[in-house]
């Protein structure tokens, strides 16, 4: 099995049951499209967008990549699909020849970690003393790969029957289990902040504090409805909380524009106001479905009420791995779990129970 085949097979394992309907499809929602297994990555071009003097956004076919450059080296946030690694590395080298020190994964999906192996191997980490003494050249041979602990748990989990283990080289080499991990790199504070049970259960946002740039992973996109990967711990409530947490970090100008720049998981470069609109959409749809559930409506009745009609032409899809119908169904099921319908009242011995 080739690396790509293994990756694609693994990718399918990541997806929820509903998503597996798109047999052979992989998660690749750049430009709103679902990349098919036979996608021609040769045709993909990497668009480099300068965000700040030392921060860039690379847009290709997978999740967006963020590049942070400075005297200490390069940090790469998310690595897109494996077949794009050569192009990603070329785009990085067009920006800087400094060594790649860190790869950070915002979550576990293949369109964000696929290039981990090639890009980490193109880098090297700093180590000395006992570490080098114990590990030898391996201690500095690659850039480290950082993610939340739950990413490693998911990637290293025993695969279900008929599915393939994610390649070891794609796993994070360092994880964190607290709310955040932070350190100084290139002279600025870098904060990797965990947002629990949102898109998945291992989501992180990466905040470059001096540059005032936030990479959100798939906790915010401009191209689709929030993808709630329930099979991997995602929830709509967690997603809405994460969007509000992003807005707590971002600061806009006095006319709600600019300020903190936001690199979305997919789509165009954004700022806080774009996140506000997306948060409003996610909250309104969630609240509608929750209210309908409280009223005892069935899933079919909720769908018939079209709770996403006002946002469908902008974010909806009838095809692909994450349709509008799946979005509504996922919210509905999670709202039913959170608000189980009351049992019909029965009369017994003169009491209402």
């Amino acid at each position, binding site marked *: 099995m080739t690396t790509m085949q293994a990756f694609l097979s693994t990718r399918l394992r990541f997806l929820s049951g509903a998503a597996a309907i798109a047999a052979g499809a992989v998660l690749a929602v750049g*430009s709103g499209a679902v990349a098919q297994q036979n996608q021609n990555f040769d045709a993909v071009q990497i*668009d480099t*967008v300068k965000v700040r003097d030392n921060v860039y*956004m690379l*847009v290709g076919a997978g999740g967006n990549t963020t590049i942070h450059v400075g005297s200490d080296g390069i940090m790469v946030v998310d690595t897109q699909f494996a077949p794009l690694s050569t192009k990603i590395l070329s785009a990085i080298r067009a920006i800087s020849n400094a060594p790649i020190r860190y790869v950070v994964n915002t979550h576990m999906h293949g369109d964000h970690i696929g290039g981990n192996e090639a890009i980490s191997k193109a880098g090297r980490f700093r180590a000395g003393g006992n570490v080098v003494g114990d590990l030898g050249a391996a201690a500095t041979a690659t850039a480290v790969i950082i993610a939340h602990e739950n990413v490693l748990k998911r990637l290293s989990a025993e695969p279900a029957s008929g599915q393939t283990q994610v390649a070891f080289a794609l796993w994070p080499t360092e994880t964190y289990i607290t709310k955040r991990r932070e350190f100084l790199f290139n002279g600025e504070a870098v904060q990797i902040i965990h947002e629990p049970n949102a898109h998945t259960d291992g989501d992180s946002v990466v905040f470059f504090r001096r540059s005032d740039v936030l990479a959100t992973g798939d906790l915010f996109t*401009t191209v689709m409805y929030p993808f709630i990967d329930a099979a991997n711990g995602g929830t709509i409530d967690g997603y*809405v*909380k994460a969007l*509000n947490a992003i*807005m707590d970090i971002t600061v*806009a100008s*006095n*006319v*709600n*524009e600019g300020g903190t*720049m936001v690199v979305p998981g997919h*789509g*165009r*470069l*954004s*700022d*806080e*106001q*774009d996140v*506000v*609109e997306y*948060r*409003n959409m996610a*909250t*309104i749809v969630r*609240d*509608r479905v929750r*209210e309908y559930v409280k009223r005892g409506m069935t899933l079919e009745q909720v769908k018939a*009420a*079209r*709770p996403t*009609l*006002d*946002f*469908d*032409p*902008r974010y909806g899809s009838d095809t692909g791995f994450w349709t509008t119908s799946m979005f509504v169904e996922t919210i509905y099921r999670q709202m039913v779990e959170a608000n189980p319908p009351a049992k019909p009242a029965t009369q017994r011995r003169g009491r209402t129970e």
Partner: protein
Amino acid sequence: MRQRMSAFMPAIFVLALAATPVWAQAQLSPGGDFPYRQSGPPGADFTGVWQPRYHEDQPDRIPGPELTDYTGLPINDSARQYADSWDSSRLTLPEEQCRVHVSPYIYRGPLNLRIWEEKDPKTQDLIAIKHYSSTFEQTRTIWMDGRPRPGPNAPHTWMGFSTGRYDGDMLIVETTHLKKGWVRRNGVPMSDRAKMTDYFVRNGDVMSHITVLIDPVYLTEPLVRSQEFLRSQRELPAGTWLWVCDPVLEIATREEGDVPAYLPGEHPFKDEYARRHGIPEIGVRGGAATMYPEFQEVLKKAPIPPPMPPPQRGASRVTGPGQQQGR
């Protein structure tokens, strides 16, 4: 209301002819694609301080639109549901208080408008025309130097990215990369995929401004609007040019993350506009058909809703059940 594409295209053409020198009229072809002109005779001079006149669409622009009034807007069902769900209380959220009118809407409201040109100091070629709006302190740059439009992954702004060209004396501006906004400030949305073409025509101290908005998300046909400005004979006091917005917490008891909205179909004041003005519901709900003259005949046959009951002494507006959504 001047929001009709069919009625206005001839008007735009007539304005263009009136404002176009004879030498240039020979090149005109209605609806044609005019090559960008970097050199050659300059177009009309729009520089100066301009102030709008509100005789056009006055109720819509100055007191502001009434809730659920979508008349004359070529909106689709998605836009209608968005507007039906929109609760103006959303503007009390700190993150919403300083939101700006997008460029397709900002010229409609009260504002002072300063226009100036930026020239290359070495060649005196026109690089850009700048519009500064006192409302929201917005500066719109209209690039005249032929620079390429940003790519699809560039950020969007309230004013968008604009490039201009002269067609005779008429300035034509194309704008993309707009943020999500509205086409009417009672919640009728405009998406961030909208594109606008402006036509600026000057006749003496009067400037006519016509906009054609295309929104593949929320409009089924182009939305055409116009407004006029008078050139001010003197500069205005500095303070009239400022718009300082400082968001504050306005409702202390609101839960964090709350987004005020009505459930679809449960807007408590949904019928108020139609009943107050005696307009059939099919008229106030908008849609492309409501822009055209023949719709008058349809309106005549449609039932007029019952008038609003007289307000009771001491009564305040009710709070509808849908208003509690999200709280």
